[in-house]
């Protein structure tokens, strides 16, 4: 029987262990070492809600090409122990071609894992670790994985020493632990799933989507942030705080999400571009203030890192179910921007673009990231160098009467910044006339509603509104993190001779029906892919776009990711 995999297929590895065993640490170090050796890759962590302890799972996927999704299966599961492993069985699909490596001292693997038919390779990781001073089983395991992947030990040793030496580990002992694992695996017959060498790897970055979004915010000019802690958005704030201070800005922890957005709005009214980050429950609290930002025409950015909902839901796991509240959660007719990054690294571009659009169009922008994008760590090509952000249109000092909400051709009216003489105005959530004076008159309401709508509709968003790959009479329409498996499935379909056009919508609001119509010329069939139970994205598409009649929908709630094979299976039914 020939090898079931091409040597260029991505390789998926799961490392499991109880909290404190170092599974997540090992996964991160493996990803970083592989990145230094020229590969690209992605690591997602899956943890329970426990603060300490519980079970932790690192899912690492490595390849020679960019990776933006989980695969269909795992090639290897390395278990440091089996405590609470049942919780993760659904997240680690194994088959007869997979391999389980586990310490026999930890007992038998759960029956559900054995049922996959994956062979078990027992390795006494804990015992091997005991033979090394300060030895830890997770570092020994990394040595085992290096042998299996044919990953040179040198980059691995570099990252392990750099990461752990500051915790007191001796470089010599860490290297020894890696070598013990490497040697122990040497005796295993046929124990190889080598990564193909990357000859001309360029520069690589390693970052999470939350870090990428925060950096995009800084690049876009954000200098003030106010945030209330919420999983899975908190680490965005924690990364941002010292960096904002380094560039002369500040981050304040608010007393709740309502305060957070109002603080950001106050700063932005003062002329300082501002942001908040949250997740579903926080976004729900912010919706009234978002309406104020719309009415008062003040730029502000909300990065919403989605998790399973409704209510407290599944705080540590991903889902695309805040689409409806982001699009429609505001009361009144309240045009605003909603954008969604299409990969971990795209969190940078999309957030930066959101800041620029919010500043240019003087309205709130919601960035819909999710737990998968935000907390996955990716090796990627460095983003293009920063480009100058378009500045907010501010009012020049003049002797003429200043009308804050003047009706202009673009719909955008120059904004006065407190401190400038002669342009004092009151920003108001009350409907107002062009000068800014409160008004309940029908004509003023109509004119200001038109203005706030038209400034968004008249703006030219360019090709960045969607990410398009491939050509074909079948199109897959998707958004956000679901773009990852769609991208991979479309490439596989192309390889099988099925022409597919993958379209990931980056700018969700305002909708771009003319642009999508152009993309759908010649498309006969559409597959919609999303991670929500109630088909929120399909509902959005039907409300705002003309679609072919032949439509399929692949939707599932979190926490399990949509896998490329599921997308491919839908496409194949049209073959």
């Amino acid at each position, binding site marked *: 029987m020939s090898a079931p995999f091409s040597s260029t297929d991505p390789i998926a590895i799961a490392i499991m262990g109880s909290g404190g065993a170092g599974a997540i640490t090992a996964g991160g170090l493996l990803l970083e070492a592989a990145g230094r050796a020229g590969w690209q890759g992605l690591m997602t962590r899956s943890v329970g809600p426990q603060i300490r302890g519980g079970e932790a799972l690192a899912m690492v996927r490595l390849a020679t090409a960019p990776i933006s999704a989980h695969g269909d299966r795992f090639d290897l599961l390395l278990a440091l122990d089996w405590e609470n492993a049942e919780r993760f069985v659904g997240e680690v699909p194994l088959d007869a071609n997979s391999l389980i490596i586990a310490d026999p001292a930890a007992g038998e693997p759960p029956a559900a894992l054995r049922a996959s038919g994956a062979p078990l390779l027992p390795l006494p990781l804990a015992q091997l670790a005991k033979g090394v001073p300060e030895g830890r089983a997770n570092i020994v395991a990394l040595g085992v994985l290096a042998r299996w992947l044919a990953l040179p030990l040198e980059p691995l040793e570099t990252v392990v020493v750099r990461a752990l030496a500051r915790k007191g580990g001796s470089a010599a002992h860490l290297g020894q632990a890696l070598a013990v694992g490497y040697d122990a695996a040497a005796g295993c017959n046929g124990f190889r799933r080598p990564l193909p060498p990357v000859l001309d790897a360029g520069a690589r970055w*390693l970052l999470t989507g939350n870090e990428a979004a925060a950096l995009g915010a800084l690049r876009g000019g954000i200098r003030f942030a106010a945030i209330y802690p919420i999983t899975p958005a908190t680490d965005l704030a924690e990364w941002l705080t010292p960096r904002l*201070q380094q560039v002369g800005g500040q981050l*304040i922890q608010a007393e709740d999400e309502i*305060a957070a957005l109002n603080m950001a709005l106050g700063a932005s009214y*003062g002329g300082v571009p501002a942001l908040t980050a949250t997740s579903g429950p926080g976004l729900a609290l912010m919706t009234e203030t978002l309406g104020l930002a719309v009415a008062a025409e003040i730029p502000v950015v909300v990065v919403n890192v989605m998790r399973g909902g409704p209510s407290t839901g599944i705080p540590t796991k991903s889902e695309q179910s805040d689409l409806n509240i982001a699009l429609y959660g505001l009361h009144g007719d309240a045009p605003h921007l909603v954008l969604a990054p299409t990969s971990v690294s795209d969190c940078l571009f999309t957030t930066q673009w959101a800041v620029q659009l919010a500043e240019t169009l003087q309205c709130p922008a919601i960035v819909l990231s999710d737990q998968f994008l935000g907390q996955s760590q990716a090796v990627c090509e*460095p983003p293009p160098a920063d480009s100058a952000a378009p500045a907010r249109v501010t009012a020049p000092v003049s002797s003429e009467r200043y009308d804050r909400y003047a009706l202009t051709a673009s719909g955008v009216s120059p904004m006065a910044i407190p401190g400038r003489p002669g342009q004092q105005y009151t*920003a108001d959530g009350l409907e107002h006339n062009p000068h800014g004076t409160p008004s309940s008159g029908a004509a003023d309401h109509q004119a200001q509603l038109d203005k706030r709508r038209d400034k968004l509709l008249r703006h030219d968003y360019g090709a960045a509104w969607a990410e398009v790959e491939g050509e074909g009479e079948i199109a897959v329409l998707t958004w956000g993190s679901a773009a990852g498996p769609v991208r991979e499935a479309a490439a596989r379909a192309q390889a099988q001779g099925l022409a597919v056009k993958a379209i990931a919508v980056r700018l969700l609001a305002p909708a771009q029906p003319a642009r999508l119509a152009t993309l759908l010329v010649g498309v006969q069939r559409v597959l919609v892919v999303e991670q929500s139970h109630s088909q929120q994205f399909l509902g959005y598409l039907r409300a705002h776009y003309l679609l072919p009649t032949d439509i399929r929908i692949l939707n599932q709630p979190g926490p399990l990711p949509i896998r490329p094979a599921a997308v491919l299976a839908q496409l194949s039914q049209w073959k």
Partner: protein
Amino acid sequence: MNSMSKPEILHFSHAAKDYKSDVKPIWCPGCGHFGVQAALFRALAQLNLPPEQVAVVSGIGCSSRLPAYTECYGFHGIHGRALPLATGLKLARPELTVIVASGDGDALSIGGNHFLHACRRDVDLTCIVMDNAVYGMTKGQPSPTTAPDWHSKIAPGGPGFNPLQPLAVALAAGASFIARGFSGDPNGIVHLLIEAIRHPGFALVQVLSPCVTYRPEEKAWKQQVHAAGVEPTADPVEAARRLFADDGLSTGIFYQRQPSPPTAPLRPASRDLTAIEAAFAL
């Protein structure tokens, strides 16, 4: 020059009328808020603050209509959220003078959480709570400062709950300047507002401001209000004693201490983004 001294007023170039906009207030004739408005303009003029350097921030309610009636920068936000709005503005633009115009419902009911934390943060804001112990804009419901037996349509016979004591709450929560005035005593409020604006931390000024429409009995405050006759104390224990012994109708500055240092002072940029981004390179 002693850097600790307060800036001297070299010349008066602003008059109270310079702070008044041409927008006609929606307040009822005789409303106490007119007195607060006039006193604020006089205080700003005496402090010689250019109108463009002052921002008046508010939430929702009769009191919160004030920003549009000024020639200052204004922000009329949403119900209860004036304090975080003002906090963000002040932190981002510390050189501005930021004044919050609020009422008993806006500041103490829907905005109660923000009230506590604004006191605790002690950011340099002046918060004027125009207290008439009623929701006027929604036509006469009890507020957190309403007596338990005040009859209204929504609470026949009275709400039945004890009123909140805003100044005692502010003291416990950490405000560094706590005062009460009466809208019928313009000179008194001008003095309180000048001191509150000059105070470099969070300054709470509760102004008893009668609602002549829904609480006409509050017109009697004119006869009932009296000066507390105390000098400001920096001792919170003494301040607590004063506030709990108080009848709610005495005026003056009850408490003033040095404000807490800001938790995250603005620092000049020390790195550029390229240096920050370099940390992501493998």
